[in-house]
C-alpha cells in the first residue's frame, strides 16, 4: 500500500511538468505581450520604456530560458506580481481567495454525494417504475441546463420575485455587527444559491452513474447468492451491492474536480463571490498575464490533488488494491 502510495505520488511529477509546459507555451505563443497591455493602459509609455520593461521582465530572452526562470520561481510559489494597478504578488492574491473556492466546492461535493447516491440506488431498485422514469427525465434536463442560466432563473425567482435570498456576495452589509448565530445564517443564506448551482450538474451526472453501476452490480452472481441464502432485501442492497457500486464513484468524484474548478468561474462571477474563479475571470478581462498563469497552474494543481486523493481513497476502499 505504501509502495502504491509513493508510486502514485511520483506519477504526479511528469504530469505537473506537462501542465506547466502547456500553460507556459500557450500563453507565450499567443500574440500580444504583457508589455503591450501595459502600453494600452498607459498611453504615455514610450517605445524605449517598453523595451526597457521587456528586458526587466526577461521577455527578450529565448523562450526556453524564460520557461526555466518561470519554473524556478514557481518552485518558490513566486508567480510574479499582478499586472493590475495594485501590483500585489500573484500568490498573495490567489492565497486569500483559494479557501473560499475550495470550501464551496467541498460543500457542493458533499451535497452531490448526499443527493445523487440515494437517488441512483432508488432508481436502480425500481427500474422502469414511474419515479425512475421521472428521475431519468430530470437527469436529462439537468444535463442540458446551462449552469449560468439556472443561476439566473434562481436569482430571478428567489432573489427578485420572492425576495427571499440575497443574490450577490458572501455577506450582507453590516455583517460585522451581527451575532454569531446571525453571522452563520447570513453566510448560509448567501451560500444556498451558489452551492446549489455548483452542485447541480454533478448531481445529475452522479445519480445517472450510480444507477447504472447499481444495475450492473445487482446482476452479479454474488447478489443472487446473497438473495438465495435468504438475506433481507435491505441487507442485499446496502451491504452487498452498495459497497461494490460505490467504488467507481470515488474515481468519478476525482475526475469531476476540473469541471467543479472551471465551474467556479461561472457561479462566482454571477453571484459576485470573491473566490478563485472570479479572480481568474477578472485576470482574463484585464489580461493580467501573471495572474492568469498563476490561476491556470493552481487550478490544475487542485485537479491533480483531487485525482490523487481519489486514487488513494480508492486504494484504501478496495481490498484488491490494498493488499497489493
Amino acid at each position: 500500500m505504501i509502495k502504491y502510495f509513493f508510486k502514485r505520488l511520483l506519477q504526479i511529477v511528469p504530469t505537473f511538468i506537462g501542465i506547466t509546459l502547456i500553460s507556459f507555451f500557450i500563453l507565450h505563443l499567443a500574440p500580444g505581450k504583457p508589455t503591450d497591455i501595459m502600453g494600452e493602459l498607459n498611453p504615455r509609455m514610450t517605445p524605449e520604456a517598453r523595451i526597457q520593461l521587456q528586458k526587466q521582465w526577461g521577455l527578450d530572452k529565448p523562450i526556453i530560458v524564460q520557461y526555466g526562470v518561470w519554473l524556478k520561481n514557481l518552485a518558490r510559489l513566486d508567480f510574479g506580481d499582478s499586472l493590475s494597478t495594485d501590483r500585489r504578488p500573484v500568490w498573495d492574491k490567489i492565497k486569500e481567495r483559494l479557501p473560499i473556492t475550495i470550501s464551496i466546492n467541498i460543500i457542493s461535493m458533499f451535497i452531490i454525494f448526499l443527493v445523487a447516491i440515494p437517488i441512483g440506488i432508488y432508481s436502480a431498485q425500481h427500474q422502469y417504475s414511474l419515479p425512475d422514469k421521472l428521475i431519468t427525465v430530470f437527469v436529462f434536463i439537468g444535463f442540458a441546463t446551462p449552469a449560468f442560466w439556472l443561476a439566473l432563473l434562481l436569482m430571478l425567482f428567489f432573489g427578485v420575485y420572492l425576495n427571499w435570498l440575497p443574490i450577490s456576495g458572501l455577506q450582507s452589509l453590516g455583517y460585522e455587527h451581527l451575532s454569531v448565530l446571525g453571522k452563520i445564517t447570513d453566510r448560509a443564506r448567501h451560500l444556498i444559491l451558489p452551492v446549489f448551482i455548483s452542485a447541480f450538474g454533478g448531481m445529475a451526472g452522479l445519480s445517472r452513474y450510480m444507477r447504472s453501476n447499481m444495475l450492473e452490480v445487482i446482476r452479479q452472481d454474488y447478489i443472487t447468492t446473497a438473495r438465495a441464502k435468504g438475506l433481507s432485501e435491505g441487507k442485499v442492497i446496502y451491504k452487498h451491492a452498495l459497497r461494490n457500486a460505490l467504488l467507481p464513484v470515488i474515481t468519478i468524484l476525482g475526475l469531476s474536480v476540473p469541471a467543479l474548478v472551471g465551474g467556479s468561474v461561472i457561479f462566482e462571477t454571477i453571484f459576485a463571490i470573491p473566490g478563485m474563479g472570479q479572480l481568474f475571470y477578472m485576470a482574463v478581462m484585464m489580461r493580467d498575464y501573471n495572474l492568469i498563469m498563476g490561476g491556470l497552474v493552481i487550478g490544475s494543481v487542485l485537479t491533480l490533488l483531487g485525482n490523487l486523493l481519489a486514487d488513494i481513497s480508492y486504494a484504501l476502499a478496495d481490498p484488491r488494491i490494498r493488499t497489493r
Partner: protein
Amino acid sequence: MWKRFRKNKLALFGAVTVFILCGVALFAPWFAPHDPVSIDVDHILEPPSAGHPLGTDELGRDVLSRIIWGARISLAVGFVAVGISALIGILLGAISGYYGGWFDTVIMRFVDVMLCIPTFFLILAAIAFLEPNIWIIMAVIGLTSWMGVARLVRAEFLSLKEREFILAARCVGASNFRIIFRHILPNALSPVLVSVVLGVAGAILVESALSFLGIGIQPPTASWGNILASGKDNIEIAWWLSVFPGVAILVTVLAYNLLGEGIRDAIDPRLKK
C-alpha cells in the same frame, strides 16, 4: 440499426428537433420577424406582445429575432468546434493506436495532462490573449476537447489492428496509410459518431457560457449567451431576457443529447439494459 433507432421515441424526438433547429438556423432571415440588430429606442425593454412575441431588449431589438439568429451562431460554433476536435482526435488516436511505441506514449501522456487542466480555465486564458471572435472561439473549443475522441479511436485501433482482415490486407501489400484509413478507420467510426453528436451539445454550452461572461460572441451579433448577459444586467425589470434564450439552449442541448444517446443504443443494444 435504423429500425432500432426508429423505435426509440426519445431519440426520434431529438433527431426531429435537431433537424428543425438546423432549418431555423439556415433560414434565419426568413423566420425572423424583425432585423436582429436594428435598434428601436421607442420600444426599449418591452414585455412580450403581439408585435414582439418574446419582448425587446435594452436597445429595443426584437428578442425572438435575436434568438433565431443566435441559433445560427450556436450551431455553427458547435459544428466547427466539434469538427476540429474530431479531426485532431481521430488522427492522433489512429496513429497512436496503430503504431504504438514512443509516439503513443507521448500522445497519451499529453492527453492525461490536457485532462488535468480545467478546460474552462484553459479556454478563458487562451481567449484572453486572442481577440474573442467567432473563429477563435470555434478553434479554442475544438483544440481543448479532442482528448475523449483520441482515447476512443486509439482503443478501437488497438483491438481492430489485431483482427484477421487487417492481416489479410497487409498480406496483399496494402500500405500502412491504406490500412489505417480504408480498413480500420471506417470500422472505428461508430463510437466516434456518438461522441461527436454529444460534443456538439457540449460546445454549444461552452460557447453560450463564454458569451454570457462577455468573452465570447460580441454584440451586436446575437448569441444566446450574450442575450442572457443583458438579461442579467436587467434582471430586476426584464424577466423575458433571462428566460427565453435559456430555453433555446436547453432544448438544443437536450435534443443533441437524446440523439447521441439514441445512436449509441442503436449501434450497441447491449448497452441498454
